[in-house]
């Protein structure tokens, strides 16, 4: 007997899901089932109708060409996404989609491309690429992943970061912040993909989605996270001792 049905929307799985970001969708869908819920995964492609009743929204990173391919659709559905975010829908946006959820992306040539403004962050194109494994401290404990971005992101006044960098570059390589979070919306540069090895974070997103979908508190099951914990702890030990 399912404890409830949760609609999970993966936006632009073809264009913006390049470093294994699909794994986040897979992780959320599997964990929902392991916790006793029913997960319905919707893939939203450019030009198609945005699904009704989205309870959880995820997006990933892409190439510059992928980003260009989703621009028009993102503009068309921008108000919808903003309304969902303001209403408390949990969202996880990685890398390219994190940048597009910010105020603007300013290219190396100085051109300003507007974002959705859901997160108060601004990204500048950079000659230097920030690449490598990352360890963060977050409200969900230690989080590990892998960053690969040339955009350098700065948080607006009062914008809360997702985590503090213990190893790696993070938003910009200088202020020790990584990602951003407002309400239930999370942006981060961490691929990895971020969720499988960091199940506490995955379950936090799930808990919020379940509350929205069912109107009841999250009733967790007991998934075996031994492998996830080992994978995470070993990366932490390798990178920060």
């Amino acid at each position, binding site marked *: 007997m399912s404890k409830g049905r949760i609609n999970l929307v993966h936006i632009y*799985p*073809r264009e913006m*899901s*390049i*470093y*294994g*970001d*699909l*794994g986040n969708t*897979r*992780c959320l869908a*599997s964990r929902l089932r392991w916790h006793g819920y029913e997960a319905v995964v919707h893939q939203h492609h450019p030009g198609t109708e945005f699904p009704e009743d989205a309870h959880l929204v995820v997006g990933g990173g892409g*190439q*510059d*060409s*992928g980003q260009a*391919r989703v621009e028009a659709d993102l503009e068309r559905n921008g108000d919808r996404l903003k309304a969902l975010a303001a209403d408390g829908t949990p969202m996880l946006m990685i890398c390219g989609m994190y940048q597009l959820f910010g105020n603007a992306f300013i290219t190396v040539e100085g051109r300003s491309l507007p974002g959705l403004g859901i997160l108060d962050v601004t990204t500048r194109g950079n000659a230097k*690429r920030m*690449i*490598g*494994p990352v360890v963060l401290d977050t409200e969900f404990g230690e989080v590990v992943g*892998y960053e*690969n971005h*040339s955009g350098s992101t700065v948080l607006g006044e009062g914008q809360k970061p997702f985590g503090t960098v213990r190893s790696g570059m993070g938003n910009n390589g200088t202020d020790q912040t990584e990602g951003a979070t407002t309400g239930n919306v999370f942006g981060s540069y961490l*691929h*990895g*993909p971020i969720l*499988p*090895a960091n199940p506490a974070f995955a379950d936090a997103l799930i808990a919020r989605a379940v509350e929205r979908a069912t109107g009841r508190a999250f009733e967790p099951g007991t998934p075996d996270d031994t*492998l*996830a914990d*080992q*994978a995470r702890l*070993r990366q932490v030990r390798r990178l920060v001792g």
Partner: protein
Amino acid sequence: MLRTSVAVAAGKAARAASRLRGGGSALPGLVVERVDPAFLAHALADLPRGIIVVSGTNGKTTTTKMLAAILREHGLRVFTNPTGSNFTRGVISSMIPEIHLGGRLDADVAVLELDEAHALKFAAAVRPTHSLLLNVARDQLDRFAEIDHTAQLLAQLAEQTTGGVVLNIDDSFVARIRDRVADGVEVRYFGVDPSISERLPELMEADVRFEDDWAAPSPTDGDGLLKPADERSFEVRFGAEGVVGPVELRQRGLAAMINATAATTTAKMLLGQDFREASTVAALQKVQPPFGRGEIIDADGQPLELVLVKNPAGFTVALGTYGSTPVASMVAINDNYADGRDVSWLYDVSFESLRERGVAITSGVRAYDMALRLQYDDVAVEEVEPDLDKALERFLTAYPDEPKRIFCTYTAMMALRRDLAARYGLANFGEDPQ
């Protein structure tokens, strides 16, 4: 000339020194490059049959080996770089023992496997007469950053090529490079016969390809198309120009057949009137799989297949090839530079074909990440052991009486291959019999 002699002498000395230390390294090449930056151009100048560069994401090593074998079977003296030395320094290093102090290479033709980024660096020093461009897939994006960028690198290599370019007709990134080839440079395609086009998704990453307004070109008579008969046997069809085959490879699967098709098409273009079908078939049938690329090792009387995996397309093809005969399996994932440091790509591979039999052991630096990935595909993992030596020992001990298979990333393969060579008295890396 004096500078070249000094460079060759210094390179030979460095090689002797590095061999004393037990290394076969790129150091001699580095030494030569420092002393004589024009060394490469000089050594390769005036090879009568030219300089062929093989590049792309998947299949470089196997294809290079096949092409060299075909040309040798036609009586040509072929210089080629051994497995893994696909940077300019590695190429120079491999020349050192085969070169006189005058610095000229004694060969008819050079067939060189080059990594996408280094192929351009190479072309800046020596313009290839021919290039064979295999495919573009997600591979080590921590180095190249974008697939579009990798495709650009290959297109620039094609622009630098003076005589002929061979392109993969089924890979839209590669086939469209046709528009970048200079006037007067011959273009040929290789690909799969339309009758098996439904198997293309096994070889491609459809999710990052977009149709745009681009249509695949129609093959013409000089283009080689693969028509398989079964897992190992196939023909290469050249329109009105005839058929090469049947060929039966020592390596299994569609990927190896595609590589053979690419090598055959390139050899046919290069040799023209001198191309002989019988020699081509004979050569391909003799080619042993390169180390770790479907190589079969006799492990106490049971076959142990070593399968190199380094990106989603390659792993997916490997699982498709071997999935039809499930055996005891080990998966070893490292994340050193040569492996690709980001293991996120494992989530772009579907492991469902391993579900029925399960995986005996995961190993390597990212053994737990691999086991976690398999957990998400409901594939049972009996054991996780990051230490490669211990894992291999346990794997061999636990399954003594049946065929075994190890999927591994590059540095994990090197370590396991070394261990297996010591255990079973195999040839060492770099001493691959021709």
